[in-house]
């Protein structure tokens, strides 16, 4: 081959290198175009929902954000009920999921015997792979009835301000707010609390796998020094591992929060879909995603536009939460020199 190539006329060689350069340019543009599609889908989703919600924004203005009305009969809509439901369910989910995920991560990185770590970690990750509609069905048919029969009566009787037997408990009488939070005469399980619990089960694998991963980045010599000074396993986890990985742990929590805010199916099944505000966590409510899923196909005009406006709000809020999550996670990666 080399002998042949040397014999080729110079213009053929030049043609060939021109052709290669042209292909190279084309290929580069093709690749860049595909990468820009990723960017376009992000901007497009924000733009499309903003454009779809323009009628609602111009009709209600800022009032849309502070009004708790949702009245298709009079064509008046406000975002407060679904926004409250979204935030309340997500916060409950975090309150439950963060300590459990931290426990799982500590167990898997410090406590469990080595042979048990991989199988348990894969089992927990299996939870992340289950489609959200399965969580929804389990919540609707299994967990919500279980909750209504076994947990809810205890909560309303011992903590709520509307107990079945009419006798106010000490907590409901003396601790502010608690009575309202757990008082309910709604007979079914579907409620903000149940939605929060189902969401918690959904985001535990996300948060715990991030925590476990970042716990493993802690240099062994740091942990061993602490053990050598006589620290207990708990003290190493709490005083050495956690401060070292703090930013990434917060990143993982925000990642879970981002998931919880935008989750549709698991929540729609167990939230009860009531478009009114209630102080009680045991009453049904609505989230942004569940409201859209329930009403969008039948909505027209201003209602449809209001749903689009809700979607825009949801997209912007999740974007900010996930942005914070990724920035926090990147800080640890920097420290690692990656």
């Amino acid at each position: 081959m080399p002998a042949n190539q040397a014999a080729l006329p110079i213009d053929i060689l030049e043609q060939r290198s021109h052709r290669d350069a042209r292909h190279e340019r084309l290929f580069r543009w093709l690749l860049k175009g595909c990468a820009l599609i990723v960017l376009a889908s992000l901007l497009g989703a924000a733009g499309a929902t903003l454009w779809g919600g323009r009628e609602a924004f111009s009709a209600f203005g800022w009032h849309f954000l502070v009004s708790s009305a949702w009245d298709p009969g009079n064509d008046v809509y406000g975002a407060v009920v679904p926004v409250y439901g979204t935030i309340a369910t997500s916060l409950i989910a975090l309150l439950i999921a963060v300590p459990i995920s931290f426990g799982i991560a500590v167990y898997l990185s410090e406590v469990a015997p080595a042979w048990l770590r991989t199988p348990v970690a894969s089992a927990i990750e299996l939870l992340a792979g289950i489609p959200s509609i399965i969580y929804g069905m389990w919540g609707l048919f299994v967990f919500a009835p279980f909750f209504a029969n076994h947990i809810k009566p205890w909560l309303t009787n011992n903590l709520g301000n509307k107990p079945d037997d009419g006798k106010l408990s000490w907590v409901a009488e003396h601790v502010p707010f608690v009575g309202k939070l757990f008082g309910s005469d709604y007979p079914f399980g579907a409620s903000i609390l149940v939605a929060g619990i189902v969401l918690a089960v959904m985001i535990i694998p996300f948060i715990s796998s991030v925590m476990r991963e970042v716990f493993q980045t802690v240099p062994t010599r740091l942990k061993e020094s602490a053990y050598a000074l006589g620290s207990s396993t708990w003290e190493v986890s709490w005083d050495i591992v956690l401060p070292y990985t703090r930013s990434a742990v917060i990143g993982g929590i925000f990642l879970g929060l981002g998931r919880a805010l935008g989750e549709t199916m698991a929540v729609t099944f167990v939230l009860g879909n009531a478009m009114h505000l209630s102080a009680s966590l045991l009453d049904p409510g609505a989230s942004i995603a569940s409201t859209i899923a329930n009403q969008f196909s039948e909505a027209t005009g201003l209602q449809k536009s209001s749903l689009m406006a809700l979607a825009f709000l949801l997209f912007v809020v999740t974007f900010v939460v996930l942005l914070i999550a990724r920035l926090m996670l990147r800080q640890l990666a920097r420290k690692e020199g990656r």
Partner: protein
Amino acid sequence: MSSPYLRRRITNALAMVMSTLATLVGLAFLAWILWETLRQGISALDLKLFTKITAYGESGGLANAMVGSLIINFIGIAIATPIGVLAGTWLAEYADRTRLGESIRFLNDILLSAPSIVMGLFVYTIIVLPTTVLTHGSTTFSGFAGGVALALIALPVIVRTTDEMLRLVPSTLREAALSLGVPQWKLTLQILIRAARSGIITGVLLALARISGETAPLLFTAFGNNYMAINPIEKMSSLPQIIYQYANDPGDAMHALAWAGAFVITMFVLLLSLASRLILSRTKVSHD
């Protein structure tokens, strides 16, 4: 034993017990969810699931939903795979450490967990609304629109795995090829993507597992159809959408059908993640 020492030991023992309990709680929920899906799903399994369509209601099956799911998922993967692989290649090979490349990589990570229902509304705006106007209402919701919505959800998964897998390819391979005078596009297509092939396939399988359970983006794009639809410009049913519809129905027979559908989806997703894990572990061995 001095009291601070005792207190520390008790705290430690308590923490160990709590962390073990936390793990048991996580595993218990996993077992509970899988057990109910298996129990209720298997007891509802029946041959008519695969032969009859949903138009028969309680005495029908899920055949059209299964076919619809296959078609919509296929469209989604067929759109997302080439775009995702090329975009991931650009991030790893052409734009590593450039400002635009880093920003797109960062935004792609955000897109990974973006709310899927918003993606559904996006596709509703850019495909369902225009086709409705252009065809004067004869084509509104379509299986194709559902496929595009799923493609948008699969895309970031494929971009990310391709990007990561290509960056694992040793740079000596690149240098060897470049020193032989191979143009970079040929190097990328014929050597690098081939070297990272199993990793990229894993990414595609993971993306398929992710989208095959997605419900929210299909509600306003593929919509649903009680009859068998093969043509992607028609409204199309899908398993998750039928599960959603049947689970909200008051009838017990409908619930059984929904459980059967949930069982089929769960098995499909678990098998996919098992397969992708196998592929990945096999490649690791062959590289050693």
